């Protein structure tokens, strides 16, 4: 599997990154006019848009919860987001990603403040490289903050992979396809500190030590992404003040 392509050359990865280096990230908050909160994110070649609607009335009615809000999360890949055109509509993979991502957000969103209502999160992958689920979670967090939804903290997500026997942060497509393991993480970050793990999946083979080391690497990467998420929101809301001074 991993024999046919060499992923690590002279201590550098295929795209020239170090083992613990993230791909370039671009985040922009509040890009959709009709959504309550939105975010566009680029993580390497991934391009993702997230939209948040709510809290709003839940339809159909029987899904309403009289004591708290229901959170719905939809991960979807555009047909043109992958190399070979993907049939539109949900498949097993996207249903699973939607479920685990929703479960990452559910304990963080203060659902009990909005009985009988629903919070809908839609993330759309416009262009996919590896790690779309982590990009989507990062985008969804920013969109939730942009929508003004009460939360206990922010969720930041990043993956660690094992390629050619080395742990690498934020894997790209080749490292995901030909590597030995892929471990997406999501953390709850509060007051600039990592509090807990909100999502943890693993696919492949890792030793216990390697998983520990991977967690450490992911934490460091997550902190960097967290700073960018903060920056994106701050930029959106302080730029309004600058605009005002010009008028």
């Amino acid at each position: 599997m991993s024999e046919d392509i060499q992923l690590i050359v002279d201590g550098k990865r295929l795209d020239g990154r170090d083992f613990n280096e993230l791909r370039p990230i671009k985040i922009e908050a509040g890009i959709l006019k009709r959504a309550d909160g939105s975010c566009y994110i680029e993580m390497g070649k991934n391009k993702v848009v997230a939209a948040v609607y709510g809290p709003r009335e839940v339809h159909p009615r029987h899904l309403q919860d009289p004591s708290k809000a229901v959170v719905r999360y939809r991960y979807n890949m555009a047909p043109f987001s992958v190399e070979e055109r993907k049939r539109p509509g949900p498949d097993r993979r996207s249903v699973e990603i939607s479920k685990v991502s929703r479960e990452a957000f559910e304990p963080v969103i203060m659902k009990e403040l909005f009985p009988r209502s629903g919070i809908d999160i839609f993330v759309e992958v416009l262009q996919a490289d590896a790690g779309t689920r982590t990009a989507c979670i990062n985008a969804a967090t920013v969109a939730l903050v942009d929508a003004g939804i009460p939360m206990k903290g922010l969720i930041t997500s990043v993956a660690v992979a094992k390629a050619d026997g080395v742990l690498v942060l934020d894997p790209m497509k080749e490292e995901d396809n030909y590597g030995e393991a892929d471990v997406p993480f999501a953390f709850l970050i509060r007051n600039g500190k990592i509090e807990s793990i909100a999502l943890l999946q693993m696919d492949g083979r890792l030793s216990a030590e390697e998983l520990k080391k991977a967690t450490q690497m992911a934490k460091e990467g997550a902190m960097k992404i967290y700073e960018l998420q903060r920056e994106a929101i701050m930029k959106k809301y302080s730029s309004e003040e600058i605009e005002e001074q010009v008028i």
Partner: protein
Amino acid sequence: MNRKIVLPGDLVSTNPKLAGYGTFVENGKVYAKIMGLVDRSETSLRIIPLKGRYIPSNGDVVIGVVREIVSNGYNVDINSPYSAFLPSTEKPEIKGRRNSDIELDDAIIAKVVAIDPKMKVLLTMKDKICRIIRFGRIVAINPTRVPRVIGKKGSMIKLLKSELGIQTIVGQNGLIWLSGDRRKVDIAEEAIYIIEREAHTEGLTDRITEFIKKRKEEGLENE
């Protein structure tokens, strides 16, 4: 008055007694739960939201649209995650006047009297401010900007009323009713949109005064 923007999960205080709107307490520490501006005083700390939906509270004046008529009352859309209910018994009884009945899709000004834990909102129209809206205009803004449109002790809304000589009622849910001379209502509408856009900036009242003066002069020249 330069207030700091905080994000959910940011530590804002270590004194749980201060915790006010937009905060939550965990292990004796106060954290922000929404994005907003920190408003800190000696005795309290709250987060002024920059975004979000309207969450009703008792005593709020709201403008709503009648969406459904049922045997014992009306279901009213109040621009919130929750729909409100106006019982027939809470409808004002205007005797001898035509058009005093509420019809489907009528806009009404009503007051929130009760909210149960299931967030079922109960309205009343037995108040002198409440009425059925049959004329004028309704302007919709972001509900978090409503306090700014009203201003400190109603200064902003007084300004609009006195400078333009129009009638307005601001619903806490972000809907504003304007009535009066059409051109003046136009100016008021524009002014409200400016306030909405620049709600978190300083010296806004002065700029709005200037804006209204300028627009009024322009209007006179055109005549």
